[in-house]
Every structure is written in structure tokens, then in C-alpha cells.
């Protein structure tokens, strides 16, 4: 007779040897395994932000990876850390993903020094997404402040690629200063080719700025909003979306048709570490996309 405990090795289970599929949340996977990517292009947007094009190297992993607008990935820079970044590209693009990244911390500072051809890792996608199908047949209003345009780019691509399915599409975009405007090289295409109404505004103009000056809510005066047929997505700092959503509420748009993307510190992306908790809710699993009604019901969200 024996008292020896035999080692139970979970490595031997078949799903532990396959590439992890992050859209299946309930099986034990190698959730810390990253998909290795190559930075195939770097676009300098502003002094602080760069757009990175990442191509997943392994063809099987590239095949598995798909995301919905609003979802984020965890971007791993081996040795320096991992950060949550919302995907800025079209979900139809299966060749590479685009990430717009601001330099603000250990990991992103390193990333900004990286050269084309460098290899980084991603895990994901994680989190909830915008209800794009539900919005079909309606007007779509996208409102962004500052870096908030980055997560709005994915739903915008979605709408543009299915332009017939949506009615009026408008983007309201405001920043503090003109030089902080992101993706300016695309504005003309959005307006002329894709029939998107684009209004921009800055809080503080410089000598070259010829557009509007003021707060983002001033843009509301320039568009007609039909409260019964409009879906809104708002991205930006909490003060901004609180202000904007209250205004939309006064126009009669139901709160469950306004969507925001919350930003919190995340360490795991998988509903474990609790760093991203808002009240009793995980931003990473139950968010980052919430309708405004849910946000109002979260303790300490705004």
C-alpha cells in the first residue's frame, strides 16, 4: 500500500497545447500565452501618439484572432510589461491590426522607441463590444475627445464598410489643441468618400487653426439629432462623457442607446486581478463598453 500522491499535470490536456482562443472564456487555456506579432509599420500621429500596425506571425493564430469594434487586446512588450489597448482598425482586416498608443508609462515609452520589424506580443481580444448590428437602420453619432478617437475608429470602419445599412453618420471630435488631433490625414476620405459628417473643435486654437474653438458640446448646435433613431458612442475622459451624455439625455436620447468605453488600469484582462474594478464590475470582462444607463448605476464610475 502506498501513500504517494501522483502528479496531475494539466499541461497534458489537449487544449493546453493549442493556441488560446480568447473568445472562449470558460475552458482552461494557456491564457498567458501571447500571439507573437511583428510591427510592420509605425505612423507618427502626434508628439505623444503613434499608430502601430501589428501582424500576427503564426498563420494559425492569425486565423483564430478576430475581434469586434470596442474590444481591446493586452499588448505585451516582453520584459517591460503589458498594457490594455483598444483596437483601432477594421474588424474586416485579417492581415494586421492597428493600435493607436500614447506614450504614458514604462511599457508604452519602450514601445515608442521600438523600430519597424520589432516583435511584440498580444493576448485577446477581451471585453464587450459596441452593438453594431443593433444600430443598423439608424443614425450613428460618434463623439470623441482627445485620444478617444482611437477606439471609435473600429466602429467607424464597421459603419463605413456597410455604409448602406446605416442612415446619417456623424463624428464630433474635440481636442485641447489642434496639434493633438489624431488621424487628420483620413478626414477628407471619411467626409468625401464615405459620406460621414465630421465636425472638429479645439479648446485652444493656435495661429494656424481655422476651425471652431470651444467645448465639444458646442458642436451639437451644428447637427440635427433625431432622438428616436440615433445611437451614440462617446469616448473620452470621464468629465467629457459625463457632460456629453447629460446633454444627449436632455435631447431625449434613451440612455441605453448611448455607449461609452471606460478606461481603467488592467493587469490581467480576464476578470481576476481586480485592478479595473468600477464598483463591483470588471471593466475588462463586463466592459469596457457599457451603455450609459449601466454606467450611471456603477459606483464610482464617474
Amino acid at each position, binding site marked *: 500500500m502506498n501513500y504517494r500522491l501522483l502528479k496531475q499535470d494539466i499541461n497534458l490536456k489537449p487544449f493546453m497545447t493549442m493556441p488560446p482562443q480568447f473568445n472562449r472564456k470558460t475552458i482552461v487555456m494557456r491564457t498567458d500565452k501571447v500571439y507573437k506579432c511583428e510591427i510592420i509599420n509605425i505612423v507618427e500621429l502626434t508628439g505623444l501618439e503613434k499608430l502601430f500596425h501589428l501582424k500576427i506571425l503564426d498563420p494559425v493564430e492569425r486565423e483564430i484572432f478576430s475581434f469586434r469594434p470596442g474590444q481591446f487586446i493586452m499588448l505585451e*512588450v*516582453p*520584459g*517591460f510589461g503589458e498594457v490594455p489597448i483598444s483596437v483601432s482598425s477594421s474588424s474586416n482586416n485579417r492581415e494586421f491590426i492597428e493600435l493607436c498608443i500614447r506614450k504614458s*508609462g*514604462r511599457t508604452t*515609452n*519602450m*514601445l515608442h*522607441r*521600438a*523600430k*519597424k*520589424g*520589432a*516583435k*511584440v506580443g498580444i493576448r485577446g481580444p477581451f471585453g464587450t463590444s459596441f452593438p453594431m448590428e443593433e444600430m443598423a437602420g439608424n443614425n450613428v453619432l460618434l463623439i470623441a475627445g482627445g485620444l478617444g478617437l482611437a477606439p471609435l475608429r473600429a466602429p467607424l470602419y464597421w459603419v463605413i464598410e456597410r455604409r448602406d445599412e446605416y442612415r446619417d453618420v456623424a463624428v464630433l471630435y474635440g481636442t485641447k489643441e489642434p496639434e493633438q488631433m489624431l488621424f487628420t490625414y483620413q478626414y477628407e476620405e471619411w467626409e468625401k468618400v464615405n459620406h460621414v459628417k465630421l465636425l472638429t473643435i479645439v479648446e485652444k486654437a493656435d495661429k494656424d487653426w481655422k476651425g471652431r474653438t470651444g467645448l465639444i458640446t458646442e458642436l451639437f448646435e451644428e447637427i440635427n439629432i433625431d432622438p428616436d433613431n440615433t445611437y451614440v458612442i462617446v469616448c473620452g475622459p470621464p468629465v467629457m462623457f459625463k457632460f456629453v451624455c447629460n446633454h444627449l439625455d436632455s435631447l431625449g436620447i434613451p440612455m441605453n442607446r448611448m455607449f461609452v468605453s471606460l478606461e481603467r488600469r488592467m493587469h490581467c484582462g480576464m476578470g481576476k486581478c481586480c485592478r479595473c474594478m468600477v464598483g463591483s464590475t470588471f471593466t475588462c470582462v463586463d466592459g469596457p463598453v457599457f451603455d450609459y444607463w449601466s454606467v450611471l448605476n456603477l459606483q464610482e464610475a464617474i
Partner: protein
Amino acid sequence: MKYLGIETEKVRIGVFDFTGCEGCELQLANKEGTLVSFLDLLEVVNFREISSERGDNYDVALVEGAISRDNEIERLKQIREKAKVLVAIGSCACFGGVNYLKNRFSMENVVNEVYGEHKVETRRVQSIGEVVKVDLEIPGCPVSKEEVERIVVDLVTGADIKFPKYPVCIECRQKLNTCVFDLGKICLGPITRAGCGAVCPSSKVGCLGCRGPAEDANYDSFRQIALDHGFTAPRIEEKLKFFNALGAALQK
């Protein structure tokens, strides 16, 4: 290492000491298991305690000790001019350290006590930061080699340098130590910045706060707790002021 397309370069360092015991410098030669790799990250341009090489072309100056003489101020200013990054290492450099205990008395009194009739020049002790601009402070009496290694790796790779903001208690509990207060001794762990691996409480000796205050340290509550445990106010103050690391924060 040529990672992310970034070529890493050795850090050219100079190591300098002022009023102190040189124990922190000595830590640089410790942790023998990784010492060869550690030295490989550096180009030692000037390090009097272990090397006869004396150059001026250093990027990073590690400065140990406090300032307590006029000629030290001059030497420090020269180093500041040459160094791109000036790092204060150890509690003496960061806060004045135990040397600050001298400042309780008049300098005349101090000189008389030790040298009698012989006049020796000395001045009130100052930390490095009180004399020149300091770019980075690595606290500890002595500094922890693990932390120094981590920081040097960050310097070489060009990554942002981070220190723990939490107090020693976390590290102490993680070692499954018995709380030093439960053993009937006073411990500054709850208000002191972690990063030392709770070395003192792990030996059942109270923390003396050599690493300076943890972020948002709750002094009022701590004082009350120490009084409630039966320690007298002078005894508590003696501990709080020992390295001048918390003392500096208390005065602010």
C-alpha cells in the same frame, strides 16, 4: 541585447563617496551570483574603492554619503556638472542618514567632544539633494543590491524606473513573519517604503525607516498605535528620526 530594434549600451558610471561608511558602494560588489553579469552592464570609469581607473567621462554618477564639509560641496558640484544623471545612493545621500543625529548639537560642541582643543572643520549635515539637483534617489541603509541591479538594468535598457509605493508590511507579511509589534517591539514598517524585502522585521527587529516614507504614510495613526502599544513619545521620536528619512517627511 538588440531587442525591439534598440541597441543597448553599457552605462558609464562613476562612483563617489562623501560623509558615510561606504557600505552602499560595497553592496555593488555583493550578490556574487550575478556580479559578473552586473559588471558587464557597466563601464566603470571612476570607482575609487575598488578601482584605480579615474576618468571623468561618466554618464551616471552614483553618489554615496551626506555632505558635512566645504570641500565636499565643491567636489559634489563638479560631479554634478559632469554627470548626465546623478543618483543619490543610500540613506545618507538621500536623507542625510544617521549623520543627521549630529545636527542635534552645535558644531562647536561636536568638535570639542571628539577632538578637544584641535579644531577640525565641519558643518551641519546635508543630504545630496539639499546641495545639488538629484535625478534619482535609491534609499536604504545600506541599499538593496537587488534594487540596484533592477535600476541598472532599467538604465541600460532605457526603461522608466519605478519604486514600490507601498509600505514594508506587505513584504513582511509575504514572508509569513510575526508582526514585530506582537513581539513587543516598535516597528516603522507600516509607514516605510518597501523594497528591502522586510529585512529587519524578518530578523524580529523593528524597521527603522531607512528607506523613507511609503506614499501617503499615515503618521498620525501610526503614532497613536505606537502609544497604544505602550511606547513612550521620546522613544517613538528617536526611531522616527534615526535616519532622518521619515524625519524629513514629518517636518514637511
